């Protein structure tokens, strides 16, 4: 069965729960729906674990399952409209309000407004660090399509954040410092 040099992917699943949940949040924009989606993903992944090739990217494989599950659920429930604004507003207002967080919340809100395809592309290549090729494979589209979705998303985000690409990029000086140090201290 599994190659001995690789751990059982079932054991590794737990390490990807946070990433799956973050990706689910970006897809659903609703924490209850995100949790359901993650649960669905875990169950599907477990059932199909024999199809996972040890040594390949487990996270990419899980993300692919998750996005397929998301789009299939959404096709089924097309008429149901999630309480996006309400849910997001609630979760955002719980966050502590130092400067860095506030600016990040603006950024999150802007991100929520992007079309699904752009949000997904940015989540995969911008946030999660997948290569364009990997993201393209996960989404079942051409590499150029992912690139253009990501770039359109970035431009839109820049617009929404009031960043003119022709000006110096500033998302707030204090923001950058505080958020930067926060993220660095977490990386350990």
């Amino acid at each position, binding site marked *: 069965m599994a190659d001995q040099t690789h751990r059982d992917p079932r054991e590794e699943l737990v390490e990807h729960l946070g990433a799956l949940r973050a990706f689910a949040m970006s897809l659903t924009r609703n924490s209850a729906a995100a949790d359901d989606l993650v649960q669905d993903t875990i169950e599907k992944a477990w059932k199909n674990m024999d199809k996972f090739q040890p040594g390949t990217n487990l996270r990419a494989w899980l993300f692919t399952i998750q996005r397929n599950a998301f789009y299939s659920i959404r096709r089924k429930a097309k008429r149901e409209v999630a309480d996006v604004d309400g849910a997001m507003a609630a979760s955002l207002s719980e966050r502590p309000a130092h400067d860095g967080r506030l600016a990040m919340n603006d950024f999150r809100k802007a991100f929520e407004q992007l079309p699904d395809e752009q949000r997904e592309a940015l989540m995969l290549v911008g946030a999660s660090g997948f290569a364009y090729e990997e993201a393209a494979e996960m989404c079942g589209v051409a590499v150029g399509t992912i690139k253009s979705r990501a770039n359109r998303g970035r431009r839109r985000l820049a617009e929404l954040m009031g960043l003119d690409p022709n000006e110096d990029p500033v998302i707030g000086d204090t923001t950058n410092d505080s958020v930067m140090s926060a993220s660095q201290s*977490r990386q350990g």
Partner: protein
Amino acid sequence: MSDDKKTSSVMRQIDENLRRVYMEEQQDDVPDRFKSLLDRLKAQEKTGHGKGDQNG
């Protein structure tokens, strides 16, 4: 082209922010329901349930 340079620096900034948001979200506590779901699935595996229950 200098326009391109400036644009890409905004784009890098955007990606940087995406990574931060994403990292922050990943740090959020994973609900217990997922861990207990995994435990449940593992338990099923041991008792032989769910084997041969494969989707095509």
